[in-house]
C-alpha cells in the first residue's frame, strides 16, 4: 500500500509542477512548445542523476526511488504532450517547428540524461575522495576503471 502512496504522491506533485510551468510559458498556438521541451529535458537530467546516485550507493530505500523517480520525475515529464504537440504542429503545416521540436527533444533528452548520469558518477567519486581524506586511494578497487554496471 505504501508503494502506491509513494508513487501517487510523487506523481501528484510532478503533475502540479508541470502544470505550473505550463502556465508560465503561455506560448502562441503553432509556436515551439518551449514549456514541454524544458520540462522533458530538465526531468531527463534529474532522473539520470537521481537513479545513478541511488544505484551506485546500492540504496535499499525502495520508497525513495518510487516517490522521486517513478512518481515525481516520471509524472513531471510527459510523452503524450510531446507526441500530441508534434502532431498538431505537423498537421498545421508547421513542418520546420514540428521537426526541430521532436529532434531537439529526443537528442536533447538523451544528452541531458547522460549529463545527469555523468554528474552522478563524478559526485560519487568526489565523495569517495573526501572520505579518504583527499589522498589517492591505494586500494586496487579504486584504480579500476568505472564498471559498466547495469542499472
Amino acid at each position, binding site marked *: 500500500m505504501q508503494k502506491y502512496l509513494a*508513487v501517487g504522491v510523487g506523481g501528484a506533485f510532478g503533475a502540479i509542477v508541470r*502544470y505550473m510551468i505550463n502556465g508560465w510559458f503561455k506560448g502562441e498556438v503553432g509556436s515551439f512548445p518551449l514549456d514541454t521541451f524544458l520540462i522533458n529535458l530538465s526531468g531527463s537530467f534529474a532522473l539520470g542523476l537521481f537513479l545513478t546516485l541511488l544505484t551506485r550507493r546500492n540504496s535499499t530505500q525502495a520508497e525513495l526511488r518510487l516517490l522521486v523517480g517513478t512518481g515525481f520525475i516520471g509524472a513531471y515529464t510527459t510523452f503524450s504532450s510531446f507526441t*500530441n504537440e508534434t502532431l498538431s504542429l505537423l498537421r498545421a503545416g508547421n513542418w520546420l517547428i514540428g521537426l526541430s521540436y521532436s529532434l531537439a527533444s529526443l537528442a536533447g533528452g538523451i544528452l541531458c540524461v547522460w549529463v545527469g548520469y555523468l554528474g552522478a558518477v563524478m559526485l560519487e567519486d568526489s565523495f569517495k575522495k573526501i572520505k579518504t581524506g583527499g589522498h589517492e586511494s591505494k586500494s586496487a578497487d579504486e584504480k579500476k576503471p568505472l564498471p559498466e554496471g547495469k542499472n
Partner: protein
Amino acid sequence: MDLLLVGAGGFLGANARYVISGYAANRFGTAFPYGTFSINITGSFILALFSAVASRSILAGVEYRWLVAVGFCGGYTTFSTYTFETLTMLRERNLRVSLLLYLLGSFITGLLSAFAGLWLGNAF
C-alpha cells in the same frame, strides 16, 4: 481547484504506469522496456482521443482537461524514464535496439497512435 484535479490525475496516472510497467517487467522481462513503450503509446492515443472528443461534448469543461489531459495522461506517460532506458541500453552497446527500435520507434508509434486517437475522436 485546478491544482487538486491535476494532482489527482497525476496520482492515478503515475500509479497506472507503475502497475503496468511492473506487470510488463514480470511478464516479458527487462531486456526491452515493453512497459514504458506501451504506456507512452496508449497515453498518446488517449490524450489525442480526449482532446478531439472534449472539444465538442460535455467533457469540454476545463476541469476535465485538468484531470484527464494534464493530470492523468501527463502523469501516466513519461519522457524521463524513456530517455533513461535509452541511455541504459546505449551503455550496454545496444545501439540499434536503443536508438532505432526504442527511441525512434516509440516516437513514431506514439505519433501514429495520437493520429489514430484524433481520427477516432473526430469520427464520433
